[in-house]
């Protein structure tokens, strides 16, 4: 149970970090008026935020799965 809790926290930290990085990239892309800003947003920002959301969703699955020692 303890290991599972630590794993969940790590997932949340990674997810938060990825989302924050992606959002910072998005802000830079919005303030930068250049065709490359779209590329920066689409290929860096969206990927980072998407990965962050994915890691968070994985953490939900991880938290919802029953601990191994309680099975049987």
């Amino acid at each position, binding site marked *: 149970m303890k290991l599972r809790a630590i794993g*969940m*926290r790590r997932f*949340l*930290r990674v*997810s*938060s*970090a990825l*989302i*924050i990085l*992606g*959002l*910072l990239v*998005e*802000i830079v*892309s*919005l*303030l930068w*008026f*250049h*065709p*490359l*800003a*779209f*590329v920066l*947003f*689409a290929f860096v*920002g*969206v990927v980072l*935020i*998407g990965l*962050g*959301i994915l890691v*968070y*969703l994985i953490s939900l699955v991880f938290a919802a799965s029953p601990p191994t020692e309680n099975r049987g």
Partner: protein
Amino acid sequence: MTGATEILVALIAVTIVLAAVFLVRPSITAGVTGKILAFVGLCILPALCVDAGMSAHMQRSEQTQFCISCHAMETHGLSLYVDDPNYIPANHFQNHLVPADQACYACHTDYTIFGPFKDKLQGLKRIYLQYVSTPPKVIEISGGYSNLQCLHCHAGARSFEENPIHSAMMDSLTSNQVSCITSGCHDTIHNADQLGNVKMWRPGQ
């Protein structure tokens, strides 16, 4: 920055603050409120930011200033100020026959359901050529310029329909068999490589 962009930046800032809370103290997700906050801060709000950001970038890429901010397009932007009504893009831009702030987009997008998306893919290809591969010396539209982009506005207009030359070849024009701009009728387009020899229009003078 427009009002919509300011709101989006504010939304992003709120999301960053919320995500930072879970970065520093992930243990708050132990309670029900924390779990709901995590779902909002790490799933709903970031997804909303991506959606709004994509929309903002798509709208911004329709602006004339956006297109000509690319070095390769500078001369094309300059060609909009040629003081000669025979220059089709300049005539449309200067007389507001197309919205001046969306002059490029008005004539260079496919008016189909996936038109703007196809244009963005073409734009990405050009960015790839510009920064990774070798940019072409002369910028050309792959597949040629479609008449449908002219007819999107001109079809049905009295001055266009009642023109005897147009009406005589209407089927060829609508089926794109005869090009409006390369058939010898309206062939003075941007001519971006010859701008040194033409008189330029300066607004307000």
